[in-house]
């Protein structure tokens, strides 16, 4: 069995990316994700990889675009305001069907906001962060272990479905330290590069030229690429939804939360159960594709839902859609970098009817 080590969430992402065969990291400093860049700056030169501090978030995501075009596993990381700048590049990655990993360790907004934890980029990330009709895979870890595991999963899914993948966590997840078991088996960068016949890595005069492109001036052709992309999204939605159910077997009420607030909610659920309330939780792990089926099924037996979020109620709308507004949904939110206490969530659960 692999050894357990104590690591910060941000560092676990960085190390897991390296073990997943990523040797190219392009980033720009921003709190609270800078540990990822710092870790890469130390490690990459020692293993023949590239750490490059770009001149801007815009440049960093375009370096990822260039690297991904060659077939290598490429990543960048940032926090909310930086992701706004990356939106253009993410749209181009999606339009060119390029796989890549983008990490967003969210902080409070809008504008410069603050540097404390937040989940307020939920809409921005799950609806397709950039112009045009597209999605990115969005994974929401709730422990340092999941930060590591989902880094590899994000690369794998991103390549399987030829689309960018995002690790979306609140600042707490990036900053907290927990024991983590990293995968012993490492993927080599060259192995990760295999089976990418579309890559622009030089024709070697052995094949016609490859073109990485998102421009289609003929509307019927552009329409075709959009439809084909959404067929892939449909497969993703059918096959890759992930969620955790906690104490849902006999639950009459369902808490919905991800990231740090899911951790707080577990404590609140235990306390509420002590007080005689049968409550459980569904924690979406993939935010896109959203595990709508799990909620539709839960709606058949629970009386009400409670979303616990670090935003003004963004995931609530996905739950409403998933259950077709068939049951009441209450909210328990803190924003601006504030995190609800277990007592606050317990009180919100006790208020459910």
């Amino acid at each position, binding site marked *: 069995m692999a050894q357990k080590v104590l690591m910060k969430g941000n560092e676990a992402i960085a190390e897991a990316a390296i073990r997943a065969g990523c040797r190219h990291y392009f980033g720009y400093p921003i709190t609270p994700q800078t540990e990822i860049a710092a870790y890469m700056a130390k490690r990459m030169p020692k293993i023949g990889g590239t750490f490059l501090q770009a001149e801007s978030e815009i440049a960093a995501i375009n370096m990822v675009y260039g*690297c991904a075009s060659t077939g290598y596993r490429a990543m960048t990381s940032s926090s909310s305001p930086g992701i706004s700048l990356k939106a253009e590049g993410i749209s181009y990655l999606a339009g060119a069907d390029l796989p890549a990993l983008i990490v967003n360790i969210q902080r409070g907004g809008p504008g410069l906001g603050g540097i404390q934890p937040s989940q307020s980029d939920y809409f921005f990330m799950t609806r397709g962060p950039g112009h045009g009709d597209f999605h990115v895979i969005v994974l929401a870890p709730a422990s340092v272990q999941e930060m590591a595991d989902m880094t590899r999963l994000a690369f794998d899914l991103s390549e399987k479905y030829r689309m960018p993948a995002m690790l979306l966590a609140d600042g707490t997840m990036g900053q907290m330290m927990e024991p983590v078991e990293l995968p012993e088996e490492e993927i080599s960068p060259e192995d990760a590069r295999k089976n990418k016949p579309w890559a622009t890595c030089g024709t070697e005069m052995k094949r016609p030229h490859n073109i990485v492109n998102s421009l289609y001036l003929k509307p019927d052709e552009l329409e075709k690429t959009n439809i084909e992309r959404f067929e892939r999204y449909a497969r993703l939605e059918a096959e890759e939804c992930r969620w955790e159910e906690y104490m849902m077997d006999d639950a009459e009420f369902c808490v919905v939360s991800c990231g740090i607030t899911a951790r707080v909610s577990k404590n609140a659920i235990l306390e509420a159960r002590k007080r005689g309330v049968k409550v459980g939780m569904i924690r979406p792990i993939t935010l896109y594709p959203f595990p709508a089926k799990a909620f539709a099924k839960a709606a058949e037996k629970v009386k009400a839902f409670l979303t616990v979020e670090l935003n003004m109620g963004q995931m609530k709308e996905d739950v409403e859609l998933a259950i077709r507004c068939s049951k009441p949904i209450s909210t328990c939110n803190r924003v601006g970098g504030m995190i609800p206490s277990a007592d606050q969530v317990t009180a919100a659960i006790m208020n459910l009817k």
Partner: protein
Amino acid sequence: MATVFEKPKSLTDAPLHYCPGCTHGIVHRLVAEAIDELGIEGKTIGIAPVGCSVMAYDYFACDMIEAAHGRAPAVATGVKRSLPNNVVFTYQGDGDLASIGLCETVSCACRGENITVIFINNAIYGMTGGQMAPTSLVGQVTQTSPYGRDAATQGLPIRISELLATLDAPAYIERVAVNNVANVRRAKKAVLKAFKTQVEGKGFSLVEVVSTCPTNWGLTPQKACQWVEEKMIPQYPLGCFRDKFAEAK
């Protein structure tokens, strides 16, 4: 019968979409000739961002990447850092390189990335129909400077080669023109040298090509070439601004 003239091998058979008299065709050819002469087509990756030349991916036979407006130097950096033994070039216009992408341009040059930049300076935004560029001349009439570029409110033209030559990192920077045969020949030498600089691992190279846009200048192709001679070149003097590895004479 002996062949005296033919299309470079690293150009595809696709017909160019450029306007009559536009010099993109000449510059494409010069780039392709350099690639052919160095025998590097199989390991070259070209990057064409937004602008009239965005569809260069159809014209160059090597692997090609289309990029967002102004971001080609960053994309090229990502490619070159992944494939350091391959040859990477960008082909960018003035709006792209000197306006929206100025930060990427300067930073890439400053890092001394071992890539080649072909910079087309025709003092106007061609693709969007003739708006003022950062390189437009004072008094130049464009769609967005209908009374002529006013220095007081719209600033003065930017000289990219001179600007980049203030940096220590770049290996080779030269400004050329393609408005007459003699200049085309000099341009050919510069483009070839820029690619050679990269192949030899010497670092960042850029060739600024003073070009024409007869359509949006509202001039015939001949008059456009004359305008280059009379108006453009005095503002953008031709010559080598950096040759780090020039042999001592």
